[in-house]
């Protein structure tokens, strides 16, 4: 895997598809910046994200409050910075759970084929036949507001794509000579899956996961915009937007800055994902055009 990343890095800097790669690099740079900001949030913010001061409510952006203050007089900049932690965490955790679930099920389906394949792929069909955001909304809604419920709901609707792609790759790879050789040398199925097949699915999975993090952040923001997800006063981008929408007329900065934060983050992951896709496997392009 490290080798793949190193190669990808080298390609990234020398590849002549310059424009595309420039966008991928911009995406990567913004993501790194967001990670750093999230990591050092406590020393970075000018105010505590929960600190209220009703006398300072609805202040427009200023030097002291770069993005202004909200209806409780809290610093919007500080809240967005802390929100970065939550958004990135949700994106990464949801994607990790989805990807691992998808890899395991896809590998089982591709490797064993027959009845195992049939059962797993029918489950995939059922999940794909249902609008994911609505299922996530219903699940998170029924379980009640809360971060964990959103994580659970989004992971439950996000794994099918990985399962499909991994299954396809495994079905193609398992017929190849190196798998036959490994088997002839006495390797067990689990060993073959882990040692020989897993490395082959990593490239497409990394591409999907990069795009997936952006999608998960977007979906989580949508759910918290509707009022699910972490509850106040936890600073979540989606719910900050939701708070702001009541004051759209008088104080649009309550809405604009969290909205920009979501957009830039999602855009960065899309840029990076698109770039990685072109680097790792141009053939993937068509399949994941959305």
């Amino acid at each position, binding site marked *: 895997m490290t080798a793949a990343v190193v190669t990808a890095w080298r390609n990234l800097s020398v590849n002549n598809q310059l424009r595309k790669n420039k966008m991928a690099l911009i995406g990567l740079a913004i993501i790194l910046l967001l990670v750093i900001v999230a990591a050092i949030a406590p020393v970075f913010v000018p105010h505590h994200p929960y600190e209220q001061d009703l006398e300072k409510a609805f202040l427009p952006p200023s030097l002291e409050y770069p993005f202004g203050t909200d209806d409780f007089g809290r610093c919007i900049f500080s809240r967005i910075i802390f929100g970065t932690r939550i958004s990135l965490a949700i994106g990464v955790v949801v994607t990790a759970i989805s990807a691992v679930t998808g890899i395991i099920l896809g590998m089982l389906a591709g490797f064993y084929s027959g009845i195992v394949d049939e059962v797993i792929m*029918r489950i995939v*069909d*059922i*999940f794909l*036949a*249902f*609008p*994911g*955001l*609505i*299922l996530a*909304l*219903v*699940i998170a*809604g*029924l*379980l*009640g507001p809360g971060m964990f419920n959103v994580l659970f709901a989004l992971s439950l609707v996000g794994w099918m794509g990985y399962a499909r792609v991994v299954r396809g790759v495994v079905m193609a790879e398992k017929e190849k000579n190196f798998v036959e050789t490994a088997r002839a040398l006495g390797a067990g199925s689990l060993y073959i899956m882990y040692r020989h097949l897993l490395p082959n699915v990593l490239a497409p999975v990394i591409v999907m996961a990069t795009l997936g993090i952006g999608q998960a952040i*977007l979906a989580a*923001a*949508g759910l918290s*915009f*509707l*009022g*699910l997800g972490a509850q106040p006063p936890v600073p979540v981008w*989606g719910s900050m*937007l939701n708070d*702001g*929408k009541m004051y*759209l*007329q008088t104080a*649009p900065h309550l*809405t*604009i800055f969290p*909205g920009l934060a*979501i*957009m830039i983050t*999602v*855009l960065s992951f*899309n840029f990076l994902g698109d770039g990685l896709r072109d680097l790792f496997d141009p053939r993937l392009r068509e399949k994941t*055009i*959305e």
Partner: protein
Amino acid sequence: MLKYIIRRLAMLVIVVIGVTLVTFTMIHLAPGDPAELMAIARYGLENLSEEDIERIRVAEGLDAPIFIQYLRWLGHTVTGDLGRSLVTGDPVQEEILLKLPATFQLALAALVVSLLVAVPAGIISAVKQHSPLDYLTMTGALLGVSMPNFCLGLLLILFFAVKLGWFPVYGYGGLSHMILPAITLGTGMAAITTRLTRSSMLNVLRQDYITAARSKGLSEGQLIFSHALKNSFIPVITIVGLQIGHLLEGTVIVESIFAWPGLGKLLVDSIFARDFSMIQGCALLFAVLFVLINLLVDISYVYLDPQIRYEKES
């Protein structure tokens, strides 16, 4: 073909069972007692008594094991009876049918808006490839794809309703109420369709028969409209078909922003009211619509492009 449709309809049954099982399980796991909610709805919070709750629990069959409740509910659903709202006591199916037209209106308007923008934009972008207009369109498409619909909706309200006052901020009514929600819902789809129309058109314009037609002396306009357009449309229709399902999904958020009285808003409202039977009904309807739309789209391809038939039936 018939076999394929029957198989897909069988799939619909499985999906419906899957969806209802999932929502039923979640409702069972969820905090909140349906019998208590019904008692509050009927007698008010101040008159709440244990006896009433227990009486309702027995009368509504809520004391039975979850599996029996599920089978009972499924039996009613087959006959078109989705139960009663835990909050208002009205039949769920009536409420849903009441809200459905507004959702269809919105989705249709969004579809029209997105096609009206995307198809011409994509064609122009392809014909004038590498022109400033092309870059402008592609940048717009990129923004459109990345912009979450709730951000876009709020921005549109801010500029066109609050600042300029051209449209009402929210609500349901005439055409003027529909424009902002339709743009909000249609933008994501428009962006994807523009990109696809462009790349599909570029692809077709590189084919030999286009060069041949051009060498016969056809004007660029004739070339594009009578030769290239038709052939570049199949992938576009595919994507549009796929997107219609997601358009339905988007109604949940867009209807909530604009207080549009459709199925999506009903679902969100029911979730916060913990109106379990209404949630169940809405989720079921969304699932059925989603599967049916995808089925219709798939069937229509087979007529549009005979090549697809082999893949799908195998």
